[in-house]
């Protein structure tokens, strides 16, 4: 075995750790954030995720992956979970769980869809629905680290009420060196709405995204159809493939 083989074989195992729900935040009718206390939690980087494992009273277990929404600097770990009606773990996390409940988490996982202030920018964030969670970790990290890298968030939600973290995003955007936030609502727009009113497409990105000539680091997260469309549009606009990182969830319908 060469040295690198040994180093790889010796990588420490990620431990399951007990997480206790400290607080529940209702974000939208379908989405909740769980603020967790996880003793011994190792530092994560913005964009990483965790595996969550639930154990029923009879020992049955189920596990799923969720993106981390909190900044690495935050004292507690926050997961933001959308309820999938025929799901197994998300209905529990997004409906049943309350302060004091306990389950297990393991992580942090994933080292590619990651941004740290030291990487610099500009930062181009594109989200659909609960795909905002790992991007919010990046924006929160940017704020805590007092980073002033030019940043744009383009965020697609179904309706105004479905916008996750709306007030926090408003507050961030109001700061002089805060990110620029562009919302688009695909199903219904309130009266006087000045944001986008359709799915994210090439024309929208040409108008509101950071120009390819500025070589932004793009992070795209959301349902597969949105990610495919946004990534394809970015390529067509001249962004380079290796500056576009994606996280997809949901079925393709195939």
């Amino acid at each position, binding site marked *: 075995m060469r040295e690198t083989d040994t180093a790889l074989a010796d*990588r*420490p*195992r990620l431990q399951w750790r007990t997480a206790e729900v400290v607080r529940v935040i209702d974000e939208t009718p379908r989405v909740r954030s769980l603020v967790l206390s996880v003793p011994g939690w190792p530092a994560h980087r913005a964009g990483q995720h965790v595996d969550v494992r639930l154990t*029923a009273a009879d020992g049955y277990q189920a596990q799923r992956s969720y993106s981390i929404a909190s900044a690495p600097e935050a004292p507690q770990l926050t997961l933001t979970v959308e309820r999938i009606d025929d799901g197994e773990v998300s209905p529990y996390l997004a409906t049943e769980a309350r302060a004091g409940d306990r389950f297990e988490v393991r992580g942090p996982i994933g080292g590619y869809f990651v941004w740290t202030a030291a990487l610099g920018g500009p930062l181009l964030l594109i989200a659909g629905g609960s795909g905002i969670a790992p991007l919010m970790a990046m924006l929160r990290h940017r704020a805590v680290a007092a980073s002033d890298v030019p940043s744009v968030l383009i965020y697609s939600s179904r309706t105004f009420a479905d916008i996750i973290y709306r007030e926090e995003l408003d507050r961030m955007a109001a700061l002089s060196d805060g990110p620029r936030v562009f919302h688009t609502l695909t199903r219904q727009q309130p009266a006087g709405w000045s944001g986008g009113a359709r799915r994210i497409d090439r024309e929208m990105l040409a108008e509101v995204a950071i120009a390819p000539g500025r070589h932004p680091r793009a992070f795209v997260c959301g349902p597969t159809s949105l990610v495919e469309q946004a990534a394809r549009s970015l390529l067509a606009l001249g962004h380079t493939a290796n500056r576009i990182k994606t*996280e997809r969830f949901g*079925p393709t319908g195939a």
Partner: protein
Amino acid sequence: MQDPPIARGFRGKRPPPTANDRIPPGQHLTHDFPVLSAGPTPTLRLESWSFALQAGGALLGKWSWSEFEALPQTQVKVDIHCVTTWSKLDTTWQGVTIDTLLEVAGISEPPQPYAMLHCDGGYTTNVPVADLLAGKAMIATRYEGKPMSPEHGGPARLLVPHLYFWKSAKWVRRLRFIEHDEPGFWESLGYHLYGDPWREQRYAGD
């Protein structure tokens, strides 16, 4: 080891008993086919596609799309297991087994014990050669009887279903034999070097 904490009020959805022995630990059944990729989906004209076998710097075999399509085809029905915890049963694939590729290239013994798969978009993954032979793996070009869609790895992906599905590299273009095992893309980022779902080898150290 300490007992895991009970998640108060959690019941869960139990898999049908018939499927139980086909679902590895920590996995659940899905009927969808989720898409997971680290970057944009590459688009490629079939005329510019080729697949190559390589050892060190030497080219052992190379096929254009039409040449590849003319090779003996194999169909399999297999269960697949994604490290993100979904499993899908009875998926049907068609393609050319690695055994067939070696045979057609006139290679009786694999030159080296490990393989690195290289893909459009820069993705790589490592697999021991023993896990690619004896009908265990193929370069698949059809899923459920139809040409594979780009999101799912078309025109061609590796299919090595007894390992976690990140090993079944999408948009695969080149199989390179190597002397020592090396981590590919996800394996360098904390995922397990080998990835056996039945031993729940998700991450480094598992």
